[in-house]
Structures are given as C-alpha cells and as structure tokens.
C-alpha cells in the first residue's frame, strides 16, 4: 500500500534525493520482494524480461550456428528441437509480455496522473506468479526427465500442436512443465490485464476525460481487453492438455478419438490476438515518441484510438489464417483471408498517421527516434509480408516455411523489439534519473539495423526456395547454403549490438548524465515528476485540460486546451 505520510495539497512540486539512504542489502531485497509500488514492479518486470531476452537470444544463436551450413552436427536433433521450442516460448511469454507489462505498470499510472495501479497487491501477485512460470519453464532443463533426470526441455514447438504433446508422443515431464508454465503465466497476465483496465478507466486525474487520455494508456487498455479474451482459452486448453496427460481425458488424444484440430483452434484463438497484445504496446511507444521527436502533436488522435480498438476487434476473428493448410473448406479459407486482410485497414491508418505526424515537423534524431524510424520502415514491410501470407492460396506454399519465420520476426524484432529499445532509451532517464549514452546508443542502433536486415531480409528467400522451419539440418543441394550462412552472420551482428546495449544500460546507470525531470522536452504527465519519480508519483493530484498538459504549461500563448 502506498505510503500514508506523503505531503498532500501543499501546492508545490517535491523533488526527492536521487539516492535516498539505503538500508542493508537484506532490507533492500526485502523491500523489492514485498513491494506493491507499480514503479518497482514495472522495473522488476523489465529486468526479468531483459534477462530472458539474453537467454532466448543465446538460444537463437545456437540455432543459427547449427544452421550455418548443411549437415552440421553442432547440436543433436533433440537439442535443436528444444532450443527453438524454448526460444519461441521464452521470447513470447517471458520476454515480450513481461517487458510490455513492465512498461505498462510503470507508465500507465504516471501518464494518467494516478498514484498507483487500481489493485497494487494483485499487481504484485501477477508479477510473482509470472516469474514463477519462467522459473518452472527453465527448471524443465533439470527436471524434465524426472526429478533428478539428466536434463531436458520441451521439444514440441511453441505452438505445441496436438497430438505430439500427448503422453504417447511426449513421455516424460517436459511437456507438463511447459503447460503449467503457460498456465501460470496466463494467470499473471489476466491479473495484470484486469488491473490495467481498472486503472485506466477508474484512476484518471481530474480533467482527464476519455478523449484526453494519452494514447499509451488507451492502447494498453485495448491490449488488456485482448489479453482477457485471448489468454483465457489458452489457459483453458492447457488445463485440457493436462487432463489428457494425467487423467486420460481425450480432448486432443487422437489415438483415442480426440481432435488435433481442436487444439489448433484453441491455440490460435489465443495465438493470433497475442501478436496484437505484443504489438499494441509497441504502437503505444511509437505514439509517444514520434510526436515528441518531431515536435508535433500526434496526427488524428481520434482515428488512432479508433484504429487501435478496431485492430483489437478484428484480430479476434482471424485466427484460422494460421490453419489454411489444415484442411478447412474453401469457404472457410476465403472467410479468414478476407478478415485477415481487413486488419490492414486500421493498421494502414495508423501508419499514415505517424507519417503525417512527422510531416512538417522538426525531427530530432536522438536514439529513441532512430529506433522509431527504423520501426516505421520495418513495420511497413512486416505488414506487406503479412498481407502476402493472408493470400490463402499462396499461403499453402509459404506456411511453415522460413518465409513465415522471416515475417514474424519482422513483427517481433523489427517492430516490437525495436520499439522496446526506443522505449528504453526514451524512459530510462525517467526510471533511473540518468541518460543512456548517445554514442553507444548509435552503435547499438546501427549494428542492430544492419544485423536485423542481414538476418531477416535474407531469411525470406530460403522460405521461397522451399525450406521449412524447425528443421535441424538440410540437404546441401537445395540452394539454401549461402542464404543460411548470411542469415547466421546477421544473427551474430545483432548479438553484438545487444551486448553493447547491455553494457550501455549498466554503464549509464552509474556514469550517465543526470537527466532532470524532462530531458526530451516532452508533453505527458510522467515528465512532470522528478526522475525517478517519488513513491507517490505526484505530490498533488495533477489536473489536466488537454491531451498535452506540459505543452499547455510550456506554451501558455498557444495551449492545446484552447482547441478543445
């Protein structure tokens, strides 16, 4: 619970010491473990996710070393299959969701002028159960083959199609660890989603009407609704899988008449919206960063909100575009083709609105903006390859090929990870009180862009040349050798970029320039507090009269509030 002794109603801004007196390390640990402060929980989510980013990145590197040449025997087939399963599962559930929830936790209350989330204790519970999920998933390396087994990990691909996950084909416990980890993670996600929705709709400060909520909280609320609708079936089907495995139920057990397609539907009813769960926060970051560094208000705010909500809705009706080859009727295929293509309308609106925001602005190319611009390009390409994949009759060729792997990494890395980097450069000063180093930031950015394109541009081509995904080796006579070599090199360049970034984070924490409350000359409420903000965020509850309260304060001659 929030500290009851903060000064209320003094009418002054309180500045706090950057390093308040710290207790012994035990007290510090105790403090973090028991905290219910949204900012500390946010930081813990982000830190937790960054650790797993390194782990899953390492797994990706192992995959790429194995595929660097045909008939390589660097990894055994078993290890390879475990690596891509763990890489995919980790990246989606232990990196993507937690880091985005982390930013949501940190920023949403600050941006709407609240002192904490609606349910601080639920918030802490969500974090701890999610991190338990991560622990459990990785414990499978030790406990997979039995409690004192020789070590193993799930090898069922991140979508875990039935009936490969049934006892008959996945004996041992790795699949159980996987299912329970996803289940626990799902509980945490749903808790956070409820919390974010309640916070955005009930905790706004005075004057913040629905049409004045900054875009980031808006998008987080949309994303949270998606989590509620999408993660519930995922959690349900994990329970069904465990029933199959332990109590002899036959949901997905085809040997006893169960259905493999049922799992596919359950999984993708989650799996597709999940992409939007991950990408909406990335959009949200872009919505905050691009205007500030272009020095213009976001273009078409109502359209941006409507488009985001529209994306959320449409994304619930497109899941079977992952199943064009599974044997649906031609009518079913046509339906899901059309619904998938429809997503590109709101997405297009968003992209053009970003463009219009830049248009006529005065762009400053600091690191957050560099990443955001790369995001714009990469997002356009990801969207276009997405449209190609929605063309069901062509999808029969592309599905489960490296073209798909390239496409979804354009979304996951090119859009989401790039925007996460942008967000870290942008909000690091707020969170730590120190700036990240710009020179290192530039190195990070350029190596990342180059590495990204070398890896994932090129990865489309083995797909077009018939290379399926999830194969641990390939024949030398298919024309894939050089392409795979280049892709692997690109992976290493990205790895170097990320190491520079990690170094920058650690180094700047101790040596970085002091940030001050508002280093980017920005307009939303989080920049009105000290950096880092005090426990209670705002000494007096702020009151706003427009979407950009700090603009109004900085430009009394031309306030936004005059237009509303």
């Amino acid at each position: 619970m929030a500290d009851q002794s903060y000064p209320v109603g003094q009418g002054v801004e309180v500045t706090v010491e950057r390093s308040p007196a710290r207790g012994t390390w035990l007290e510090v640990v105790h403090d973090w473990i028991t905290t219910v402060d949204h900012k500390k929980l946010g930081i813990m989510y982000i830190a937790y996710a960054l650790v797993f980013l390194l782990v899953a990145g390492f797994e990706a590197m192992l995959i790429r070393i194995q595929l660097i040449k045909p008939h390589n025997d660097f990894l055994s087939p078993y290890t390879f299959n475990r690596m891509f399963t763990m890489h995919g599962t980790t990246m989606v559930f232990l990196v993507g969701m937690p880091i985005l929830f982390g930013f949501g936790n940190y920023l949403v209350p600050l941006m709407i002028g609240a002192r904490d989330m609606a349910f601080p204790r639920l918030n802490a519970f969500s974090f701890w159960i999610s991190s338990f999920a991560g622990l459990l998933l990785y414990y499978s390396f030790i406990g997979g083959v039995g409690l004192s087994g020789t070590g193993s990990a799930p090898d069922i691909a991140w979508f875990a199609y039935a009936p490969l996950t049934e006892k008959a084909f996945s004996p041992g416990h790795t699949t159980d660890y996987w299912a329970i980890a996803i289940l626990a993670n799902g509980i945490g996600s749903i808790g956070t989603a409820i919390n974010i929705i309640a916070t955005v709709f009930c905790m706004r400060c005075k004057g913040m009407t629905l049409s004045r909520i900054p875009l980031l909280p808006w998008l987080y609320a949309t994303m949270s609704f998606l989590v509620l609708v999408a993660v519930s079936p995922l959690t349900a089907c994990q329970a069904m899988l465990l029933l199959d495995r332990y109590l002899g139920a036959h949901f997905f057990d085809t040997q006893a008449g169960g259905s493999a397609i049922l799992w596919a539907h359950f999984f993708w009813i989650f799996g597709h919206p999940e992409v939007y769960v991950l990408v909406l926060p990335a959009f949200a970051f872009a919505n905050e960063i691009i205007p500030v560094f272009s020095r213009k208000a976001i273009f078409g705010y109502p359209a941006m909100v409507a488009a985001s909500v529209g994306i959320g809705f449409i994304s619930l009706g497109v899941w079977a575009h992952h199943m064009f080859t599974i044997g649906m009727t031609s009518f079913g295929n046509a339906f899901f083709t059309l619904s998938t293509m429809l997503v590109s309308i709101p997405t297009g609106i968003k992209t053009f609105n970003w463009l219009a925001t830049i248009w006529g602005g005065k762009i400053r190319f600091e690191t957050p903006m560099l990443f955001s611009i790369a995001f714009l390009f990469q997002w356009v390409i990801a969207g276009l390859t997405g449209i190609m994949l929605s063309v069901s009759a062509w999808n029969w060729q592309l599905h489960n090929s490296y073209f798909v792997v390239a496409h979804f990494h354009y979304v996951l890395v090119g859009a989401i990870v790039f925007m996460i980097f942008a967000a870290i450069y942008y909000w690091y000063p707020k969170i730590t009180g120190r700036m990240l180093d710009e020179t290192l930031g530039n190195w990070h950015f350029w190596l990342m862009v180059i590495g990204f394109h070398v890896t994932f541009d090129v990865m489309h081509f083995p797909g077009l040349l018939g290379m399926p995904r999830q194969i641990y080796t390939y024949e030398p006579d298919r024309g894939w050798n050089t392409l795979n070599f280049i892709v692997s090199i690109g992976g290493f360049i990205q790895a170097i970029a990320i190491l520079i970034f990690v170094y920058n984070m650690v180094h700047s924490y101790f040596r970085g320039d002091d940030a001050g409350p508002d280093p980017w000359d920005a307009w939303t409420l989080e920049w009105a507090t000290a950096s880092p903000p005090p426990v209670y965020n705002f000494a007096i509850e702020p009151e706003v009269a427009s979407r950009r309260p700090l603009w109004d304060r900085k430009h009394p001659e031309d306030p936004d509030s005059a237009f509303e």
Partner: protein
Amino acid sequence: MCRAIAPALVIAGCASAARASLPASIFAPHSTPAREEHQLAIFVLWIALLIFLGVGSLLTYSILKFRARPNDDTEPPQVFGSLQIELSWTIIPILIIAVLFLGTARVLFSVQDAKKPANALDVVVIGHQFWWEYRYPQYNVVAANELHIPVSPASAPHPTFMKLTSADVMHSFWVPQLGGKTDLLPNRVNEMWIDPQSPGVYVGQCAQFCGPQHAKMLLRVSVDTPEEFNAWIKNQQRTQAELAQAQVALASVPNPGNQSKGSVPPNSPPTHGAVAVVPTEAPDNAINAHNGQIVFEQQACINCHAVAGTMANGRYGPDLTHLMSRATLGSGAAQNTPGNLLAWIADPNTFKPGCLMPAMHLNDRQNAQITAYLLTLK
C-alpha cells in the same frame, strides 16, 4: 531497406534459371495448382512492391525534408488532423483489399474445389514418424517414401488426386514445385491434387514439426512417363506374385503375409504370425539372400515391416517389398547403397537419431545376411 521485396521479384524473374539449380523453389512451378499459386504470388508481390515504394518514399522524403535545423528552437505549427485526408487513406486500402481478395478467391476456389476427372489416379498418403506411406487403391499397391505418379501433359491430362491422413502426429505434404502443402492429421482425411506436366524427380519435405526427425522426413516425387509409370506399377504387382511363389518354395510354411495390401488399416498392430514355425537357427551360415530372409523373419523386423508374398506384414514401418527400387533410405536420410543399407540395419540411429526403428543388435554375419536379402527386393 527495400531489399526485402525487390529480390523476390528478381527471383521470380529468373524462375526459369532457378528451375535447374533450385529444386524446391516455389517460383519454378510444374503443376497446375503450383502454377496458379505462383501467378497469384507474382500479382501480390507487385501490389506489395508498389505499396512499399509509395510508403517507403514518402517516409524517406519526410525524414530527409523535415530534419530539425541546428539552433532552431521554435516549435513547428501544430496540426491535429484532417478528416478528408484520413478518409482517403481509409478508402484506398479498402479498394486494394477488394482487388487482392477477389484475386485470391479465384485461385482458392479453382484449386481447392476442382472436380476430379474419371481417369484420375488415386493415391492415399499416410504420414508416419518419420516417413511416408503411399497406397494405390486402384492397383492394390503399397509403396513407401518415394511417390511415383504419371505425367499429366496438357494434351492428355492425367491428374493425381491424393487423400492424406496420418498414423500418429500431424505432418504436412509439401513439394513446392507441384503445389502448396496440405496437412496430414490423424482421424481425418484431407485432399489435394497435382498434375505435373513434365517428367522428373521433384523434392520436398514434411512441413509440420512432427518430432525429433522432422528434418529428415524428405519427399521424392517421381513423375514418370505413362510407359514408365505402367512398368513401375506392373513391377510392384508382378513381384508380389513372384515373391509369393518364391516364399512357398523357400520355407513351405503357412504364409499369413500373403494378403491384399490395400485393406490393411494404417494402425493395424504388427502381426506376429508364424514366427515360431520357422526354424530358430538358419540352416547354414552362408551370407546369402536365402539365409538373410530366414534371419529377417526370425527377428522383430517383420513386426514392423512388410515384404509382399512373405510372412512379413508389419505395417508400423515402411513396406520393403520394393526397397531396391528406391533411391534413398529412411525417407531421404541417406543414399540407398549396399553400404548404407548395412549400416542402417546395424543402427538406424546413426543416420536418423530419434527415428523409430531400433537397432536390432544382431551380429555382423546376420546383418550381412539381411542386407543380402534386402538387396534382392527390387
């Protein structure tokens, strides 16, 4: 950053060059479904390229044009939106989507709902961890791993219609030059058709992760001239009869294996049949096909494998009746040479770690005998 799409078109343009050197390119179609998918692909690629060039150049232009000048601290004019502009970039995408969707639907329905002509060849494809089983119900033939079908020239079309199902987990049949992939699911039958217009061997592989050896579940489709195909089918049938007689002469034991292949369901349990009737020791230790067959029939080999006309009628592993007519072992894991065959029998896991055939732990002489026998299965 436009590298993503332009080379796709380059590749598309060089499709003919790609044919020889890139055996699995989707830009070198050889069958009607693959060709229609390919044409659609080119159409979609063009649209995507145009959109990319449009948006990409707008973006590039605005980044270059609207950079902040140094020492200019004034804020640009604040623009909040414009209904007309936003309507225009809502309506234009709707039109583009209409075009894309109609183009897709045309190919979708024409490929997926094509009528089966009377002369079509029927093939039942059954996916197994990690190999392929093919049945030809019209000819009462069972084959494995290498699919033979007749060519289907435009002048005398002879398409192949496949029913696909799986004996265990999900798999997916994908030979890019002949058509898009279709999944194989247990308890369910999917359909697809191909009509390759030129003879040759087309490669592909399983495209749905199916376990440790998913990577080595390769596909070879041999598209034969009508004469070759008839000869192949004849051979498949003739040898069955021949082997049946040879078997009678060889061991003169009751022969439960000599039954119609077409009627065995995919999951039928291995038959243990008349193992006990066969003498437990080979009569002499010479390394020859005859002794090889005896060893083969004494061991668990026959629980999983079938050799038409003998007591071996297992259905768990590939049918070996015409093993030597195949170019590869283990669904593409190795070339089918006597040396590889011997090594495979000694321990299949050296070629395909995780494959479901166990090492039989026989002595060298027995392995050699079995190899000698298998070499006669032409």
